[in-house]
């Protein structure tokens, strides 16, 4: 249970913890939450972790937690913090171990009812082609030079292999290729972990879901995304796998060793950081961008496997168009007003509006797509970013429903076989996970995604476009 801190409710969706709440705070903290979510967020150590972030050098006021925030390590999951390019820091713990964990949505243009009889076969085919958990099928094994190219170019490196199209790149955050990537800053160990994991989900809350679009709230934005009521869509959630984890491990350790040199004192060692413009900070940023490129490429390879599986099962070529791919765990150098800031989003996404230059051409009239997966068996949402979000949250939004219950508590609450049965009763075909994993990721372990989305919509961070429900789940 978290310590109690004074707070002021600024409006129905926003709470502020003043800078005076703790002596070491440099700036106030703000939490986007209604009363019910605020009660949940105060139930663990999220607020304490958020206040720890406010103590970091060069932090820009205020730091934020999104409505799906929960306790993590270092930064809370759902935390957003910006730091000055010249006087601020960069923290691997502020990005997380799964660098550029993210989601992408594919539009099928097919009626879900027509697809439904094929869903069991489709999920089986997906499980053969996309490695999940401890499985190995469908992965690409890369030679060192090929891996370096993926680290340098991200999804673009897959064009020549026929695993990506220009249209895919156009609808991926940063075109799926961060220019600041430095493959040489990625350790041999990290590269060894990443050598044969491209095209794999990993475990935990990662998944490929076949979904049906149940409701459209904004017809103009939905049309821009190619989403229509009753159509099937595919949502993919994974990240940079062992390579990204090793990059984080390597640099937390390196920064832990040099903080004294820079006179940095921390309330939590996992917040280990270095000045952004220091040799250590620069090198981490290059390695993090390389790991992020690997994650973009990983989701792109899985996209191709999904296209192949649809083609195999339906016996024809199916156009699965990438709606958008958005990163969850990243530090980005961005222009905010007159300042260049290094914005850390850990378990949070960008939500840029129509006027932002990085919003893809297809979405210039409506805003950048924001994708918010719920838990297994519950809804996911497609939204669009707003220009107001730049002012309110450094252009950021939440990334999911957010855990409300630990894995052990979730297993105690309902055993895995009951979770499986409940999903089957809902007509959801589940593959790739044992009962233990199902119990840990069950819907009751997460916050109410509808409520979370209500808050970001009402707060003006993003605008609701469509609500999707799962009909098939391949679980990592």
């Amino acid at each position, binding site marked *: 249970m978290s310590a109690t801190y004074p707070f002021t409710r600024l409006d129905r969706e926003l709470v502020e913890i003043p800078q005076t709440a703790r002596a070491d705070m440099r700036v106030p903290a703000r939490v986007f939450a209604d009363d019910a979510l605020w009660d949940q967020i105060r139930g663990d*150590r999220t607020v304490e972790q958020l206040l720890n972030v406010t103590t970091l050098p060069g932090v820009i006021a205020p730091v934020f937690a999104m409505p799906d925030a929960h306790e993590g390590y270092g930064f809370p999951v759902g935390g957003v913090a910006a730091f000055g390019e010249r006087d601020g820091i960069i923290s691997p713990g502020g990005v997380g171990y799964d660098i550029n964990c993210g989601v992408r949505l594919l539009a099928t243009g097919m009626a879900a009812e027509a697809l439904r009889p094929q869903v069991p076969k489709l999920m089986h085919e997906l499980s053969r082609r996309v490695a999940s958990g*401890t499985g*190995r099928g469908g992965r690409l094994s890369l030679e060192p030079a090929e891996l370096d190219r993926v680290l340098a170019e991200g999804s673009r490196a897959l064009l020549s292999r026929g695993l990506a199209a220009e249209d895919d790149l156009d609808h991926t955050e940063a075109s799926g290729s961060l220019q600041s990537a430095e493959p040489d800053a990625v350790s041999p160990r990290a590269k060894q972990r990443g050598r044969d994991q491209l095209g794999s989900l990993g*475990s*935990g809350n990662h998944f490929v879901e076949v979904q049906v679009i149940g409701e459209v709230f904004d017809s103009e934005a939905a049309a821009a995304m190619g989403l229509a009521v009753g159509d099937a869509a595919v949502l993919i959630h994974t990240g940079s796998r062992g390579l990204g*984890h090793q990059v984080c491990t390597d640099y937390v350790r390196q920064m832990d060793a040099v903080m004294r040199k820079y006179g940095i004192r921390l309330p939590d060692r*996992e917040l280990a950081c270095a000045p952004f413009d220091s040799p250590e900070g620069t090198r981490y940023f290059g390695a993090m961008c390389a790991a992020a490129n690997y994650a973009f490429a990983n989701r792109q390879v899985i996209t191709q496997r999904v296209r192949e599986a649809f083609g195999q099962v339906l016996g024809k070529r199916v156009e699965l168009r990438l709606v958008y791919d958005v990163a969850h765990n990243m530090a980005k150098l961005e222009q905010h007003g007159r300042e260049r800031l290094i914005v850390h989003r850990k378990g949070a996404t960008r939500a840029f509006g129509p006027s932002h230059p990085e919003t893809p051409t297809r979405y210039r009239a409506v805003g950048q797509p924001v994708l918010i997966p719920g838990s297994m068996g519950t809804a996911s949402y497609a939204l669009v970013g707003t220009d107001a979000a730049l002012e309110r949250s450094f252009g950021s939004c939440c990334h999911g429903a957010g*855990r409300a219950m630990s894995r052990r508590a979730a297993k105690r609450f309902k055993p895995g076989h009951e979770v499986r049965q409940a999903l089957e009763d809902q007509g959801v075909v589940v593959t790739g996970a044992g009962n233990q994993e199902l119990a840990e990721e069950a819907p009751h372990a997460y916050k109410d995604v509808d409520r979370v989305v209500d808050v970001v919509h009402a707060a003006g961070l993003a605008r609701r476009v469509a609500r999707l429900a799962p009909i098939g789940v391949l679980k990592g």
Partner: protein
Amino acid sequence: MDGDAQAGHEFVDHMSELALRLRAPAFDALLAEAVRAVGGLLVAEAGAEGPGATRTIEVVAADREALLVDLLNELVFVAETERWAPQGIAAIEATGTRARLRLSGVRLAGTPSRIKGATFHGLTVQASGGQVEAEVILDV
């Protein structure tokens, strides 16, 4: 706690990760207990296919806390890249900044992916009353 009367470990609730609590009569025995705990998790997830090689793992760090984290990260790395997990401890030498372990092990049937790394968050190693206790959060 699992383990004998003097050394043991337990996994405790954490909202999104996995917290490992350890106790032992001395720091070297604590590291051995950490190996048993994480070895057990790796085998439970990926399955054992048969006996594996005996290997020596050596880690060097600034302090005992970092040494514990580095040792666990080494086990995660070897498990993922070589499908090997520790099963028994043949020998262990440890100071506050260096540890050398001779470990017997098993060949894993699959590639474990559940434990991604050990973190510095809330990391403690404390000695009191003839016991050494530690807590470390594993990213899962």
